[in-house]
């Protein structure tokens, strides 16, 4: 295992912080992500990351806590999307696109103003692409609290949320306020992606929100197992990604490593490819054991 753990890996404080925060964010993203994928809200989940980043840029200008900026912007964005209309799928698409366009446009302005007011270069890139190695350890307590709040909130609404996600019509007939449950979920999504955007950057935020859940849903048959497996896949990809990113500093003569986001995304994609291959293998092997053919659903 010596080749994997380059010298000084665990002695490095920023690596330790990265591992802990990364794991926290991976778990929260996995749980929220399962519902996000089931509800077909991957676009909203990604869009809110960019909205949160705009908030981060604004916070930087206003000299306000970045965490507040990321999460506040995300929640506002979620509210705006809901106001424009998320009931029908095509409406949702437009709502998400419009809010994303406005937020990204504002990002452009904020980042421009930041480069005017400061002399540091590279701030655009660090805000946009983020890096788990550059997060302050002091963020950990706040991040942990927020993460736990999201998990608790999701656990609290999990049944009406599941019903609304399976069939809004049926849920409505049962007396569930589908619109309010949906909005509640969007707010939790906004907090979760705001958290992960500031900790691991916007690219990884989407990758961990969508990737492990997508892989898991191919293989799991129960919600609890799907959530657990997604968490495991997410944490694994994050930890291995952090380690490899640290190691990569030693790979090139230029002493410049590759970003964490690159490794984690590649690992997440590998997980997805493996899960897809496993599904196909299982389908071929189980087909012969199946009972008599049943009527067509019109769905392949």
């Amino acid at each position, binding site marked *: 295992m010596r080749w994997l753990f380059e010298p000084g890996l665990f002695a490095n404080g920023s690596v330790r912080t990265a591992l802990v925060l990364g794991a926290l964010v991976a778990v929260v993203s996995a749980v929220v992500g399962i519902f996000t994928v089931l509800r077909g809200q991957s676009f909203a989940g990604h869009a809110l990351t960019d909205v949160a980043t705009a908030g981060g840029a604004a916070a930087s200008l206003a000299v306000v806590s970045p965490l507040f900026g990321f999460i506040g912007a995300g929640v506002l964005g979620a509210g705006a999307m809901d106001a424009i209309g998320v009931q029908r799928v095509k409406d949702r698409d437009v709502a998400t696109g419009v809010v994303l366009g406005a937020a990204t446009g504002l990002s452009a302005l904020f980042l421009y103003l930041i480069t005017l007011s400061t002399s540091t270069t590279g701030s655009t890139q660090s805000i946009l692409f983020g890096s788990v190695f550059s997060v302050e350890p002091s963020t950990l307590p706040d991040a942990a609290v927020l993460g736990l709040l999201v998990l608790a909130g999701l656990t*609290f609404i999990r049944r*009406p949320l599941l019903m609304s996600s399976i069939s809004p019509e049926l849920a409505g007939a049962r007396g569930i306020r589908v619109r309010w449950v949906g909005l509640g979920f969007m707010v939790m999504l906004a907090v979760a992606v705001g958290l992960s955007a500031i900790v691991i950057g916007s690219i990884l935020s989407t990758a961990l929100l969508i990737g492990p859940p997508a892989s898991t849903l191919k293989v799991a048959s129960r919600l609890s197992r799907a959530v657990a497996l997604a968490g495991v896949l997410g944490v694994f990809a994050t930890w291995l990604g952090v380690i490899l990113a640290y190691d990569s500093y030693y790979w090139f003569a230029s002493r410049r490593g590759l970003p964490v986001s690159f490794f984690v995304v590649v690992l997440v994609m590998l997980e997805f490819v493996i899960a897809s291959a496993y599904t196909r293998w299982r389908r071929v092997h189980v087909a012969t054991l199946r009972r008599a053919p049943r009527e067509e659903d019109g769905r392949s």
Partner: protein
Amino acid sequence: MVGSDLLRVRDVDVSIAGRMILNDVNFRIEHGEFTGLIGSNGAGKTTLLRVILGLQNVVRGEVLVHGQPMTRSNKSVGYVPQKVLFEPDLPVRVRDFVALGVDGDRFGFARRSKATNETVDEMLEAVEASAFSTRKIGSLSGGEQQRVLIAHALVSRPELLLLDEPLANLDPGSAQEIIELLHSVVTNQQVALLLSSHEMNPLLPVMDRVIYAANGRIASGTTDEVVRPDVLSALYGHHVDVVRVHGRVLVVAGDHEHGGSNLADHPDLVIE
């Protein structure tokens, strides 16, 4: 007499987006009755079901369950929608979905109770779905999903079960199985049933009451009372004949002199 009514729909008018869908709807359903809501597509059947569920506002009239106005979360009325699209990768097993029929509307941190699991097993037996209770619900056939939806609705022990076109997407064999299943449910579980369909004949052997919908109006009573030329002609506003062939009932459009062309879009008004 009034006190024994399970469901009473009184003087109901329904309007959607400026259009009158239903006019002066009046009928009663009593405990344990099997009622068919018959009408062609567009006659307002789904609208009427939504009104009974409390999901659709009425311009006039009221819906009373046990003499009280109907509210959205009234547990006495269960619902099976026409089609629920289950994604193939939905990580919910049949038994989990049926269990949601008990606690799906509950917020909170509590785990599923043992009593719920036992009720689920019982209901899966009743609809003959025990064999596939651990399969993912998205992997079942249409007929199998239909059974599961019925179990989901029954598990909270409603007194009245509404079904929106449960036979529409099924082949005749599966449709017959579902009708027999529903009939046994009515008898064994003592649940009243109101199901909508554009086909009357498969239900003739089991219906206690028929509500015939046409032209935004309804006629309610036993099959013999309602499915008659004079009653249906008045309902449609045009001359209509009722033909009985081999135990099947056919409602046939009258001559064109009386405006038969307006009835061209009613599928059951054609000699099969």
